[in-house]
């Protein structure tokens, strides 16, 4: 199993959710996050004063999938999250040892 994590622009959430549903993913976790990447935030002018926004609001989406689906799913997320502009975010995956569905005690891929 793999844990796919995507840190992306907040407004892409609806698209990503739809794409994941179409792909057949049943569950995901969303967290409000902030951070920056290569662009190191950006400067803004508000009411005449320039100030630096160093931590940009993002959302962090986490999905557990079977190994075989991981690459394809990353593609789906990347496609749905992309606007082509700076700050579109990142998607990565990690191997997962165990997953248990709390209610039933099912383990492994059955728990997904």
């Amino acid at each position, binding site marked *: 199993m793999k844990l796919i994590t995507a840190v992306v622009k907040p*407004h892409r959430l609806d698209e990503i959710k739809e794409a994941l549903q179409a792909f057949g993913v049943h569950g995901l976790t969303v967290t*409000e996050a902030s951070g920056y990447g290569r662009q190191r935030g950006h400067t803004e002018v508000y009411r005449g004063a320039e100030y630096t926004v160093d931590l940009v609001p993002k959302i962090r989406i986490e999905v557990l999938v079977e190994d075989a689906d991981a690459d394809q799913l990353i593609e789906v997320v990347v496609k749905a999250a992309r606007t082509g502009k700076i700050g579109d975010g990142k998607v990565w995956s990690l191997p997962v040892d165990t997953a248990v569905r709390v209610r039933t005690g099912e383990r492994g891929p059955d728990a997904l």
Partner: protein
Amino acid sequence: MTESVEAQGHSYAAARLRLLTEEAQSGPPRRAALARLTDQWLADLAADAARATGAGGWALLAVGGYGRGELSPRSDLDLVLLHEPGDAKGSVSALADRLWYPVWDLGLALDHSVRTPAEARKTAADDLKVQLGLLDARHLAGDAAMTAGLRSAVLADWRNQAPQRLPALHELCTERAERQGELSYLLEPDLKEARGGLRDATTLRAVAASWLADAPREGLEEARTRLLDARDALHLVTGRATDRLALQEQDQVAAALGLLDADTLLRQVYEAARRIAYASDVTWREVDRVLRSRAARPRRRGLLGRGRTAGAAPPPERVPLAEGVVEQEGEAVLALAAKPDRDPVLPLRAAAAAAQAGLPLSLHAVRRLAAAARPLPVPWPAEAREQLVTLLGAGESTVPVWEALEAEGLVTRLIPDWERVRCRPQRNAVHRFTVDRHLVEAAVQAAGLTRRVHRPDLLLTAALLHDIGKGWPGDHSEAGEVIARDVAARIGFGPADVDTLALLVRHHLLLIDTATRRDLDDPETIRTVAETVRDTSTLELLAALTEADALATGPAAWSTWRASLLADLVGRVAGALDTGALPESADSEPTAEEERLAIEAARTGGPVLALHAYTEEEAEGEARQQALGVELLLAVPDRPHLVARAAGVLALHRLTVRAADLRAFDPIGEGPVALLSWRVSAEYGALPEAARLRADLARAFDGSLDIEARLAEREAAYPRRRGITPPPPRVTVAPGHTSQTATVLEVRAHDAPGLLHRIGLALASTSVTVRSARISTLGSNAVDAFYVVGKDGNPLPDARAAEVARQVEAALR
């Protein structure tokens, strides 16, 4: 013997199960039946145990809820085994073992103690919970005389020590309320521990038993029964001794009680809790009052010697708060001269005055208002609307006053649409409060944001109304827009303001939805929002409303993450909107009267004034005796300190400035004359005579009247109570080129007597000249714009303008 004990246990358990699951009984009869069943079992058990152990001189008592004969399905059995001092043979502990083990064996929760009467009294004296439990002690078995003896001793102790123990009990209740929250507004309330819950109801009984004060009883017993019934159903549904009515249980509990749905259940629970919480508030205030007057009495007796009559008590001090409203003994009450039957604004005025002073509104006052007050004419007169805004703008202290109005049905009478949101639960994981409390809470939060907007009155009203559409079919924002429009017109806002309020309610989720879900880099997103919001003043209102709404919703609804997205969106939309120039105030043509006054002033070189009393729309039927306000036209040849001095004289005459306009023109070519038109109202009713006002103005301008000294004198003679802590004043330079000819300073502050005088002084000390000004007081908020120029007659450079704003702000703190 053991067999028999087991058999008794089995048959008790079976009977208990039958009662709780099969029999059609419920409510008070079932609780009583369960208590009787348990009494019988324990009495048999105790009799057998006494026989077996040969113990003598003991009694078994039920205390707490069981003592009252009310057992819920999963209630603890609160038992006390009372025994004579000395237990040499260990027969009492053997007796206790034979009592407690069978209870444990049946899996029942047991709260037990074994004490001598003296120990019981001592524990009660140390621990309020034990004391409260023993007040409800009831004899189950053994020596009935022992029980009776303890009961009367404990009651007597309680009555004797009430002056010391009740304040401690009150503190305990306050702490618990803070920890547990308020039953009547929480979506997942604790039926026992929350404020207005069962523990408060029990506490009221204890206060009554002290003979010191009594609770308003009407509806109290029904309310308690309702909560107990809900708790019984909760125990049966969950199979646990829980008191928290969690979201997931609410449907089943409602079904078990034969109610239509969870909403109906919660509404009933909320109504009951409000009754209990309100009775508690009133009772504790009464306790405080009684204790204070007792504390005062012995000293006086000492002074007057041992005479049997200590003389009539001096009348309690009464400090005026507003027309018809005074403070007395820590409560806002109606003045002796108040006429609730002839003054339809009085309920709102009293509520606003109480909230601004941070005081509760006395029960007696609210009842008298509810009984006597006449309905307000529709649309409301301006004073009623302003008092509502003042009430809403008081922050935290709005809540208890609003609750008091609500408890006597005054809120629904003022705003009939409130009925629909009253006690309305919302099944939403983000929300913490019922709809009505959420609306009041949003106003409380908005009161902290009033310095950010030009129209605090619209912000506060929009906060109160933003979810008014909940409970109607369809989208609550759309339904709310229609109702808000109606309510806004009813409470007397003009057509433009009604439109703004309707827009704010309709789109109160627009900013947060857009900020968190749309692409802010997309110009289309910004354009759509800008088109909906139309202008910057609406945008600042909507942004403040969004924040107040989120803060009032619950911890999950507002975070720095959300705040930063919202700020980003608002900044971008503001950039896309026209800055919406402030209207130039200086250029309107003077009326014939103004011109006449100005010419006279220019000729005489002194102040000239005209007073016009005006009344609002007459209340139908009898005409009102008093004028509601005065329009004061003042023409003075231009001079330094003009605003400060004129405003100072008005403050000395106890006139409150509701609105003012200042402009200057040159009528006869002999130098500019300042024209001030004021709308003022008297702080306490009576309006001053024009002649005295004119004389004082003349003395103020020629310097023979020391206004500061006189104001300070009066402040010292009648210190004002501190009241609430409003948000700090804020002075800003209006952005952009709102005026070509002057720098516009915007002053926003909490209204207070002499405020305008102090602003005038502060401005004069920075040596800028006020060319014109627009003063308005919206509820308790002053929102003023001063058009100022430097010595050269030109607008101030940016840095200088910022410096002046900073200085004025510092002077107002």
